[in-house]
């Protein structure tokens, strides 16, 4: 049995079982949301096809059992169970289908054609469980002329148009620091699985859900898609490159006076965002320049935008002598939206997150003890926490194969002897 020391019976998704064939970030971030809520998520890897995040550990050596010590993997797979099963073998496929028959949802984020080659596509799953829900997360989708293309998280934001809208004024497109397409698609996929479950509850019908990661990101810039059409309607000769460059204005906003301002301390900044005249007056008062609120150059939203460079200089003259917390606290007390631009070193100790109990200390048999973000969906009656640490490689083979699938000791031993299951990942797969 897996460690069930913290009961899951009082969590929102207790009783839902998910067969998780996803790896890296997009898929696992989605199944993590459901695992946090109490779904029983069984993650499948194999010796020759294992989650690449296990190799991104940055530990010197590398140490013994490195594959169980990568923080990136251990964050994204907490609250899940893990088994090894080589889906490219007939026996591995057969056992995966038996697990699918006992599951409510199967998740996969392979390239579009892979799940079919494994013989585990929707039709195959449906043959063993009529109301199964399959969630597929290919980058470009499963149809269309570019469905064979490969893309990771930063490609996704480029494809979706976000990168064309991000950047310093007068400069080219800029990327997010993270593979932003991944967690975005994950959160959408988790919600879509729940929508499919609610539909199944009403009708008894399962379905195949497809989250094309590229498409899943476009909605987040939907207003720009409309805005460009409005610009074209106003001026059929409008130039998209010039229009895109105008959208790239760093921290600024078309109708707010906003930006980040240097504070004391190395590379420390406070973000300030001013909308109304009242907020501007409050800012002027707080920074000891009340006369500016009566200055004709800054009388309204439009004139403030025209003179933002002067105002920026005035604001930074005040912030420069203060810590980012002092600046934010003073401005918030005056009624101005302001906040520290938190370095990750500070985010881990941020007073708001600490007061809310966001960081939870986890204990992992191979990796030790450290702080990890808790479940973000906060339920008042059924609060969730990190119940179990991320699975070590093949940690729950015995439970899943023996207890769930009812295989005998001899059969389990045979699987290992035939390399259908494994205790260690093959080195070199991801290097």
């Amino acid at each position, binding site marked *: 049995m897996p460690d069930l020391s913290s009961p899951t019976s009082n969590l929102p998704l207790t009783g839902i079982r998910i067969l998780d064939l996803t790896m890296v970030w997009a898929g696992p971030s989605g199944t993590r949301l459901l695992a946090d809520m109490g779904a029983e998520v069984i993650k499948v890897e194999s010796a020759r096809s294992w989650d690449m995040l296990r190799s991104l550990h*940055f530990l010197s050596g590398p140490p013994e059992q490195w594959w169980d010590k990568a*923080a990136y993997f251990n*964050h994204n797979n907490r609250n899940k169970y893990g088994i090894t099963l080589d889906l490219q073998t007939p026996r591995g496929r057969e056992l995966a289908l038996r697990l699918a028959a006992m599951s409510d949802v199967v998740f996969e984020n392979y*390239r579009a054609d892979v799940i079919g080659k494994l013989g585990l596509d929707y039709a195959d799953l449906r043959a063993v469980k009529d109301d199964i829900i399959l969630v597929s997360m290919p980058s470009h*989708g499963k*149809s*269309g002329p*570019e469905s064979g293309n*490969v893309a990771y998280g930063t490609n996704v934001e480029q494809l979706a148009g*976000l990168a*064309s*809208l*991000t*950047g*310093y004024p007068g400069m080219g497109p*800029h990327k997010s*620091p993270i593979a*932003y397409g991944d967690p975005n698609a994950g959160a*959408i996929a988790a919600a879509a699985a*729940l*929508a499919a479950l*609610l539909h199944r509850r009403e009708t008894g019908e399962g*379905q195949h859900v*497809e989250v094309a990661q590229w*498409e*899943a990101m476009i*909605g*987040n*810039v*939907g*207003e*720009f898609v409309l*805005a460009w059409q409005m*610009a074209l309607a106003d001026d059929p000769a409008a130039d*998209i490159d010039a229009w895109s460059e105008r959208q790239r204005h*760093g921290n600024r*906003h078309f109708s707010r006076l*906003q930006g980040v301002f240097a504070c004391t301390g190395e590379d420390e*900044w406070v*973000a300030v*965002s001013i*909308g109304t005249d009242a907020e501007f007056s409050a800012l002027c008062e707080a920074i000891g320049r009340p006369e500016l609120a009566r200055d004709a150059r800054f009388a309204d939203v439009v004139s403030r935008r025209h003179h933002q460079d002067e105002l920026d200089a005035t604001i930074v003259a005040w912030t420069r002598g203060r810590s980012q917390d002092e600046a934010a606290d003073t401005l*918030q007390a005056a009624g*101005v*939206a*302001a*906040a*520290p*631009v938190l370095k*990750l070193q500070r985010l881990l100790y941020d007073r*708001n*997150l600490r007061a809310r109990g966001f960081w939870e200390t986890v204990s992992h048999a191979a990796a030790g003890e450290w*702080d990890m*973000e808790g479940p*973000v*969906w906060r*339920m*008042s009656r*059924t609060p969730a926490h990190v119940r179990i640490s991320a699975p070590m490689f093949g940690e729950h083979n015995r439970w899943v194969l023996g207890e769930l699938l009812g295989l005998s000791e001899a059969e389990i031993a045979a699987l290992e002897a035939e390399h259908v299951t494994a205790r260690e990942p093959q080195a070199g797969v991801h*290097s």
Partner: protein
Amino acid sequence: MTPPLSSLRILDLTSGVSGPWCTKLLADYGADVIKVERPGTGDESRGHGPFTGGVPDRERSALFLWLNTSKRSITLDVQTPTGRDLALRLAAQCDAVVVDRSSHELERLRLNHEDFAAVNPSIVTTSVTAFGLTGPYADWRATNLTSYATGGQHYLTGDGDREPIQNGGYHALYQAGTWAFGATLAAVWNARETGVGQRAEVAGQEVMASILEIYMPDFAYRKAETLLTRRGNMATAVVGIYPVIDGHIGIHAMPKNWPQLLDSLDMHWMAEDERFKDNRARLRNNDELMAQLYIWTAGVTKAEAYERGGRYRAPISPVNTMADLLASPHLDARQFCREIEHPAAGAMQYPGSPARMPATPPQVRPAPLLGQHNAEVYDELGLMARDLATLAAAGVI
């Protein structure tokens, strides 16, 4: 074929981006979303430009039109006792109510989860805020910029020798909305299983702090600060944005994509070169590798680079503009965008839904006019036409 959430009814008390994005997703996937707007002015995003025709008009804001499809709009001032009573009567018929105010404001209005639960024990109250309902920032004023700043991603975005920048649009607010959408469905699922509702709370800061890829997990575990700097457009030579003849492209090659990348670049000599022989060597000679990539990208167009990436299955993508999205043969073949005709704003192409559910496809309707559904929603509540006239005269609706 009905949409998947056709059995859900939602009371939407939100305004702006986070809450409306959450309820737009619910509505497009079939939930009956009753959007409550302030009489006279409506949702604050109605005042957000640009507007069709270039002139400010509450019915023609791009942001509002996008974020409020498929909903029904009623006007109702929940700050008045009568308005509050009507909101509770509506909540009695709903699976979930979505709110975006602070706990102090909700207390003042007496529109907390407990108030809704008193009239409907199975109701879910989804709270979506910047900093959460508790904690020292709970009453802070917030915008997308402050949420981005306190979530960690802001500090990492931009060039190391310049100020950090946010990414374009309202991503901290959108993420909070997306996560509130999922949290609502998880809580509704549980309410249907158990008959008892609860409050589902999503804080934008916590959403952003939980999607910091390798950066936060690695720092939390090793306490090493080596990864925690702004690295501009180049995480490494093979994870970055490059200029091409007619714009920009992105490359995001993992070690296993190296052979395919060389195929796309037609630079097979690099496979034999000691400097680039494995991932470790490539990181050591990152600048030289970057120089080689600049040489290649200077001679191709976005379309050529993307075509070669596709042909050889290398992760190369164009930095698409909004015009590129609307002209994409791939998205076109997949019928991604849909034309929606709005009575005031006219017809435009709207992006499709983020998840495809072909067995239960979404049914998307144009965003409502302010108070467009007053008559039908209040009729469903049992109010007479003359009651509506009274309420309107009193400024309640």
